[in-house]
């Protein structure tokens, strides 16, 4: 742009002033309520499983698997994105959000086939979470081992 039309720093300030900001309080409340509700559903599933006589050592895994299934199911029938539009982090952070990220990618790239489509693109969004989840768990595990070993 020709010198004189607008100065870069001045323009960046103009952009900050004019661009609408997210409604942070409303978004936080929605995220809290939806995220809390998903967690509450998890608690209910766990309680029901325990009542039905599930072993306490595996009930957490059963609950996780059921929540993942529900996340995938609601993604498949097109409801999870509608929830996500209002809930934001409230529906992204729980494990159902992870399931949504994997299932939506699998659906999106189905047309490119089961190898280069679904196979390679399924973890396009969830991949980094897995990679850095494993790396950080190794680091934390190492620290735990050392701390426990010293004590």
């Amino acid at each position: 742009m020709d010198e004189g039309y607008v100065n870069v720093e001045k323009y960046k300030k103009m952009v900050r002033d004019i661009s609408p900001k997210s409604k942070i309080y409303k978004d936080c409340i929605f995220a809290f309520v939806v995220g809390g509700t998903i967690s509450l559903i998890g608690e209910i599933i766990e309680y029901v499983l325990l009542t039905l006589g599930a072993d306490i050592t595996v009930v957490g895994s059963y609950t996780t698997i059921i929540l993942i299934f529900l996340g995938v199911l609601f993604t498949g029938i097109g409801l999870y994105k509608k929830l996500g539009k209002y809930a934001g982090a409230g529906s992204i952070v729980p494990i159902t959000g992870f399931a949504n990220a994997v299932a939506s990618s699998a659906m999106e790239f189905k047309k490119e086939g089961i190898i280069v489509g679904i196979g390679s693109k399924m973890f396009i969004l969830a991949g980094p979470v897995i990679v850095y989840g494993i790396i950080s768990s190794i680091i934390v595990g190492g620290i735990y081992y050392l701390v426990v070993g010293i004590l």
Partner: protein
Amino acid sequence: MKHVGKQSIIFENKIYIVATSSIVGNKEGDGPISKYFDVILKDMSLGENSWEKAESKLVEESFKLAIKKAGMKNEDIDYVIAGDLLNQSIGTTYGVKSLGRPFLGVYGACSTFGESLSLGSIILDGGGGENILVGASSHFCTAERQFRTPLELGNQRPLTASWTVTGDGSAVISSNNKYENKGLPKIKKITTGKIVDMGINDPNNMGAAMAPAAADTILTHFSDFELNVNYYDLVITGDLGHVGRQLTNNILLENGLDISDIYTDCGIEIFDKKTQDTHCGGSGCACSAVTFTGMIYKKMCKGEILKVLFIPTGALLSSTSIQQGQSIPSIAHAVAIEM
């Protein structure tokens, strides 16, 4: 033709816009300017099994419609100049192949329709052909998967984001003198934009990235032709949306050009901000293409508007450039259309 000022051309021959076609998706069909569109799709897939094939079908249908409305046959078209947003412009190439006409594919992101109109006019004024088909397309579902996230991902779109228009706008332009006195709009002047990059790197605020390019081209156009501020009835940018329009207008005002009353943006016109949840407005190649070939062209033919400065705007980013932390280079091409 004659080169004028820094970046402009004035045409010596009359370049008529003989006919246009505008095909849009159902969301655009629910918008405020829906009555101007030729075809409103009920099925976004057009019966195809992938979104990319759907976009190509859209392009093909629109091209055929424009040629038919111009009263021509495929053989009458000397060149097809068109493009879209997809990698290697597959939306256009697969759509144009059945026409069997000489084809020049162009890429100017969402400014593609302005680029096509400009290049077509230059060829016609230079005597390189008589009838040229120009067009540009975009599809919400192909653009989302290429530039953003899977359709079913549950995330929130920022308030500065825009909504990619599904559609194709095409026009048959001609230098044949038989169209004289037929009441057709004519392409008189163009100002080709240069790339402007003000360091904006947020792909969810493309109006802000493109506004300086639009302002640059508008100011250059007015200065190259030494135009009076009242010269045009309508000045309309491509897909800056609400934020970008305001930023552009601010830059124009700071540089002493007050066209606030006659200046709007296709992205603002095509959707209803309050009811359609499109945030900043429409975007994509089709945003300016269908707003022009639908609303503006028809209003001009009816004599409701006589002089229009049409400035499709493009954000020349790619997913790779954004991931590598680069800012968004932008461009805007002005085309002056008069009765």
